[in-house]
């Protein structure tokens, strides 16, 4: 008994104690509290009245800004997030792959990669303003409208982020612009680690570039592409700043996503319970990725 106590009370704890205290106070305990609050009205951001699953039921069935299946096409933050998931993930990974493969063949590769990677360093705030300016409905200031007008002189300027039909796609393009560099850098590094002998041997055997890419390069990039895709999926679920800057969820809530809904329901509408339920839904959606990470980590540890 005493021996066991002695091993528990070791000075070694001191190394991890500051970190564990902060994580406990700011992450673990709050996470549990948020789960509890999602079953409460949470008005004024404190526990008021237990309401069971009411928040979840209302979110999923009666909140047209969160999930509206009664129209065609369906709309709401969840649907927008699905559009984000499909377009943002495939475009960043796809374009990243194309740029990495193409740039690999030219001597000025570092310059191309740096240019594409540059937006990763700046904030969503700055990127949002850069793109709001591109999308400006005034053809005298907005590059996009001016470009289209140069091609079709009778073009009527479009408020790209001011219209329900275009707003989500416009914001997604800005996000893709920011994150393609990340995909390019990761895939380019993976590409360089493929042994040249393999691709050379295939070329000697008469395979053309197209065959080499589909038959060798792409299969050998499968693992990094999978890791990259999970990173992008997490990004999609967390996307907030860009929407706060570019649209505030508008017009008429048309560009809301899940993370934005959590913020606005909690801190602008003061509905702590409702917002917490949105946060819990975010967490539930991310749990598969978490399990995937844990499995990968344990596999890597076993190899050590």
């Amino acid at each position, binding site marked *: 008994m005493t021996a066991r106590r002695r091993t528990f009370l070791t000075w*070694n704890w001191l*190394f*991890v104690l*500051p*970190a564990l205290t*902060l*994580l406990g*106070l*700011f*992450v*673990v305990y*709050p996470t549990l*509290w*948020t789960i509890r609050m999602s079953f409460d009205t949470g008005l004024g*951001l*404190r526990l008021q009245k237990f309401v069971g699953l009411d928040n979840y039921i209302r979110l999923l069935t009666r909140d047209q800004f969160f999930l509206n299946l009664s129209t065609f096409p369906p709309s709401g933050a969840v649907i927008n997030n699905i559009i984000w998931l499909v377009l943002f993930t495939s475009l960043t990974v796809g374009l990243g792959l194309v740029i990495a493969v*193409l*740039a690999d063949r*030219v001597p000025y590769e570092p*310059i*191309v990669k740096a240019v594409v*990677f*540059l*937006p990763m360093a*700046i*904030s*969503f*705030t*700055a990127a949002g*303003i*850069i*793109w*709001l*300016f*591109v999308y*400006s409905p005034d053809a005298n*200031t907005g*590059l996009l409208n*001016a470009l289209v007008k140069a091609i079709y002189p009778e073009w009527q300027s479009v408020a790209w982020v001011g219209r329900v039909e275009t707003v989500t796609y416009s914001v997604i393009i800005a996000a893709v*612009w920011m994150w393609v560099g*990340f995909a390019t*850098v*990761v895939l380019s590094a993976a590409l360089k680690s493929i042994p040249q002998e393999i691709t050379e041997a295939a070329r000697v055997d008469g395979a053309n570039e197209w065959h080499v890419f589909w038959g060798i390069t792409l299969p050998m990039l499968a693992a990094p592409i999978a*890791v990259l895709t999970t990173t992008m999926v*997490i990004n999609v679920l*967390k996307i907030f700043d860009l929407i706060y*800057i570019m649209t505030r969820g508008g017009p008429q809530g048309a560009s809301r996503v899940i993370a934005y809904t*959590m*913020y606005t329901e*909690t*801190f602008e509408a003061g509905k702590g319970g409702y917002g*917490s339920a949105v*946060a*819990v839904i*975010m*967490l539930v959606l*991310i749990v598969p990725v978490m399990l995937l*990470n*844990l499995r990968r980590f344990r596999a890597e540890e076993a190899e*050590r």
Partner: protein
Amino acid sequence: MNARLSRYLSSGFLHAALILIAVVWLVPTIGLFVTSWRPRPDIFGSGWWMAFSTFRFTAENYIEVLTAQGLARAFLNSFAITLPGTVLPVLIGALAAYGFAWLKFPRRDWIFLIIVGLLVVPIQMTFVPALRLANGLRLTRSLLGIWLAHTAYGLPFAIFLLRNFFAALPRDLVEAAKMDGASDLGVFWRIVIPLSVPAIASLTIFQFLWVWNDLLTSLLFVQDPNLLPMTVSIAKLLSTYGTEWHLLSAGSFILMAVPLVIFFSLQRYFVQGILAGSVK
């Protein structure tokens, strides 16, 4: 002949595609940059791509946004938030990473597994209770609240990245030092830290950019209007003067200046950091 022609054509296509991509990626930023140096009437009179035919440039926008709009103060606030918001998680994270890599204590591997799980927990899950805690302790009236929030939110990644790096260091080195009577703190400072400079540099750059560029955490944890960082100040500028591009463009470039300097001077560490931990 035919093969050469097709190779020539395909390499022409290759260069054209890459140059097009580079142009598309640069033009939006260049447009805003040019705009930030143009007089206000010109910005609304003609597109920025016409700026070189009118050729009137001024630093007036920068002066106005820094002084009248108070971005100079916000710039300093951003530093006041970012420096501790970077040093604290790196330092506390490194200590913990050493613990998880080289020390023994009960449930060590289980606790570390929980931290790996925390890597992807959305910070939205923590906001309401964490904010109530910070408000209750009066942390949000100073910068203490945002420092602690950024430290806590940065820790899982910091611990994960550094622990994996530390654990890969040669065991003999650590054990030899202990045989010579070095304490754990001594091993940490004199052996592990000096050997881990690349990992620590990558992490520091990452955390610095993450905190400097952060909008969401500051929106919540900085409640004194005199302490707001640049991201929040520019968001406010945007909602007050939606289309005053002379202010927004200059403000954005002041906000971008620091990350761009870091990017150009430390790109190597930045890229290494991405490759080491593309899980966050």
